C-alpha cells in the first residue's frame, strides 16, 4: 500500500500541489491550461499556515479507521481493502455532508463540478504517482510504500 508522507519543514508554500490536483481533475489535465480563476476547480488538498506561520500541506490520510466512512449513511464512502484508499462513489452520495463534518483533517469538501455531492482525494486513481507528489518541487510530499 502506498501513502503520501508529509515533511512540512520542506514545504515552500508554492501551492503547486493544489494547482496540480486541480489540473489532474480537469479533462485536459494541463498545468498550462487549468483555469485558476474558476471557483469550480477545487483541489482535494490544501496548503495552510500552521501557528508559527510555516506552510503546511494537508492531505487526505486515507485513514485506517476513517471517520468519513463511519459517518456516511449512504455507503458512498468505502475503504478499499486492497489499496487502502478511501474511495468516494458519487452515484451513491446523498449530499448530506456528514462526511464533511466528521473528517478531522477537513479533507472532505463539496464538489465544485457537481453541486449536490461531496468530493475528496482519489489518490489520483488514474495515475501511477499522485499528481501532487510529482509536482512538489521541494520534496515536502513524497510517496512511500507501507
Amino acid at each position, binding site marked *: 500500500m502506498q501513502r503520501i508522507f508529509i515533511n512540512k519543514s520542506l514545504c*515552500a*508554500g508554492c501551492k503547486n500541489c493544489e494547482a496540480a490536483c486541480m489540473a489532474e481533475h480537469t479533462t485536459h489535465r494541463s498545468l498550462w491550461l487549468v483555469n485558476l480563476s474558476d471557483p469550480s476547480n477545487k483541489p482535494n488538498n490544501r496548503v*495552510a499556515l500552521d501557528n508559527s506561520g510555516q*506552510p503546511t500541506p494537508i492531505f487526505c490520510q486515507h485513514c485506517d479507521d476513517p471517520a468519513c466512512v463511519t459517518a456516511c449513511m449512504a455507503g458512498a464512502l468505502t475503504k478499499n481493502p486492497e489499496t487502502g484508499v478511501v474511495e468516494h462513489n458519487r452515484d451513491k452520495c446523498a449530499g448530506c455532508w456528514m462526511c464533511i463534518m466528521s473528517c478531522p483533517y477537513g479533507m472532505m469538501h463539496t464538489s465544485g463540478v457537481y453541486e449536490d455531492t461531496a468530493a475528496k482525494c482519489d489518490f489520483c486513481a488514474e495515475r501511477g504517482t499522485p499528481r501532487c507528489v510529482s509536482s512538489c*518541487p521541494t520534496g515536502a510530499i513524497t510517496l512511500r510504500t507501507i
Partner: protein
Amino acid sequence: MSICVSADKVLEKFILSKKDLESSFNRVPDQEVKCAFGMQGICCRLCANGPCRITPTTPKGVCGATADTIVARNFLRAVAAGAACYLHVVENTAANLKAIGLGQSDISLKGTRLLEELSSKLDLPGNNVGEKAVALANQVIQDLYRPRHEKMELVEKLAYTPRYKKWTELNILPGGAKAEVFDALVKTSTNLNSDPMDMLLHALRLGITTGIYGLGLTNHLNDIIWGEPRIRLAKVGFGVLDPEYINVMVTGHQQALVGILQDGLSTSEAINIAEKAGAKGFKLVGSTCVGQDMQLRGAHCQQIFAGQTGNNFTSEILIATGAVDLVVSEFNCTLPGIEPVCDAYGVPQICLDDVAKKQNAEYIAFSLAEKDTIIQKVIETAVERYKKQRPSVKVDIPEHGYDDVVTGVSQKTLKEFLGGSYKPLIDLIIAGKIKGIAGVVGCSNLTAKGHDVFTVEMTKELIKRNIIVLSAGCTSGALENVGLMSPSAAELAGESLKAICRQLEIPPVLNFGPCLAIGRLEETAADIAGELGVDLPELPLVLSAPQWLEEQALADGSFGLALGLPLHLAIPPFITGSELVTNILTKDIEGLTGGKVIVNGNVEDTVNELEAIIMAKRAGLNI
C-alpha cells in the same frame, strides 16, 4: 470577518462596520500562503524551458542560470520598472511646463521665483519666464531621451558634489534615462547578462536617474507650475470629506495633470453648476501621493482642496463613505480593488493617463490643449453622480483624522523656518539634543505587521529615542492619520526632542508629503552635509522604507544606496534566494557607495540597529 489590522484604529473600526465592503484588508488573509520561490526571487520565467525554480536538488535553471543570476535579473527588472514609472511622471510634467511656457495654456506659473533660481543655477537661456520654462523643460526632456553613451547633463549640476565625484569614480553616472531603463530590460532578457555585480551597478545608475529626475526635478517643475510649498496647518483623514460638496477624489502621482482641476472646479460657472445640483460647490479630495502633493502646495489651492484622506490602502475604504462622487486617476497607486467599490456606490471613474487605465474608467487622454474639455467632462460626470446616486446611497463619514497637521515642509521651507540656514538643527544634533535624523519613507503595505503598523511603531520608537523623523510617501498618510504629525505628538518624543518640538510648536515627525518628496528629503540631507562640509554617508542619518510595496520603492531605494545612505526594509526585496546578491546589497556595497540595505522585520531590533548606526556616525564626526 477576518481582516488585516491597521495602525489606524478608527479606520479599522470603520472597515469592520462595512459588512458588505470587500477591500484589500479582507483579501490579505486569503493570500496568506505565499510562494517561497517568488519571495526569494529564485523563480525565473524568462524562457519556455522554465519557469525554473532553484531548490537544493535543482541549483540551476535549465539554461544554467544560478540563483545569483536569476535573483539579480529579477531585481534589476523591478528597479527598471520602478525607475520607468517615475521617469514617466517627470516627462509628463516637463511636457506641461513646456506647453505653458510656450503660451499654449492660460495657466500662469506660480513658482517663477524658483524658475529664476533654477535657470541661473543650471545656466539655461531665456529672456522671460516663458522662455526660461521652455528651456528648463527642454533640458529635462533632452536628458531623458539621450542615448545611453551620452551622460545626462543635469546630474552634475544638481547632485551633491562629493556624490557626483563618487559616482564618476564608480562609473555609475547614468546615460539617457530612458536608454538606461531600456538596456536594463535588454540585459535581463533571456540568456544575456549573467553578472550580478554588473546588474546591481546598473540598478544604482537607475537609482540616480530616479532620484535626480523622477523625484527631484518632478518636484521642482511642479513647484514652478503650481507654487512652492508653504508651511501651514492642514486637515487630514476621512473627516475632510464634506457631504455638502460634490467630491472629486484624485489618485495618482501627477499634479501636473490633475492640477488643472484646481482652478477648473473653482470658477463661478463651476460653482453655479454645483449649486444648481443642490451642492455648495466642488472639492478635490486627496488620496494617495497626488493628494499629498496638493496638501504640500495647499497654500495655493486652499478653497478647492478638501485635504488628504490617507494613503494607498485607504482608497477603497474612502469610496465606501458614499460621499465620493467621482474618481479621477492618472497614475498609481490606483488599486484595482477600487473598481467593485466604485460600482457598488455608483461612483464613476475617469482616467487621464492610460498607464493607469482602469477597466471601468472612462479614458480621456490628457492634453493641456484639451484642458477645458477635460474639466467640463469632470464636472458633468461628478454632477450626474451627485444628483442621481447621492440621494440613494448612505453617506457615512467617520470621525477620523486631525485638524492640525503641519504640512508644507520642504528642503526650502524647513531652512527658512530655521532662520535661513540649517545651523540651528545642526547645533541641536551636535549638542546631542537631537541624536540624528531618520527618513521614514516609501509606501504602505499590508504585510509588515499590518496596514502601517511597522511604520507607526518604528516611528514612535525613533522619536522616543530623540531621533527626529522626516517622512515622504504613503508613510506620511499613515503618520498624519494617527496624529504623529500634529504638534501634540511632541509628548511622545524623548525629553530633549520633546522640549524642542514644544518650543517650536512642531511635531517630532515632519511631513514632506508624497514619495516624490523623497527627493526633497535628500536635498535637505545634502544641504545639511554641505553646511557641515562632509559627504552624505558621514551624516547621522538613516533611511527606512519599512513597508515598501512596489517597484518604484526599489528604484527610490537604489537612489538611497547611490547616495551612500543606510536603508532599512522590513521585508526583503525578493533577493534572499541569492547569497551573493544579498551580501552585496547588505554588506559589500558599503565599501563602494557608503550605503547598504538593512533587512529587519522586528521593530525593536530595527530601531536598535538604526540608532547604533547613528551613534557610530556621530562618533565618526567627533560629536
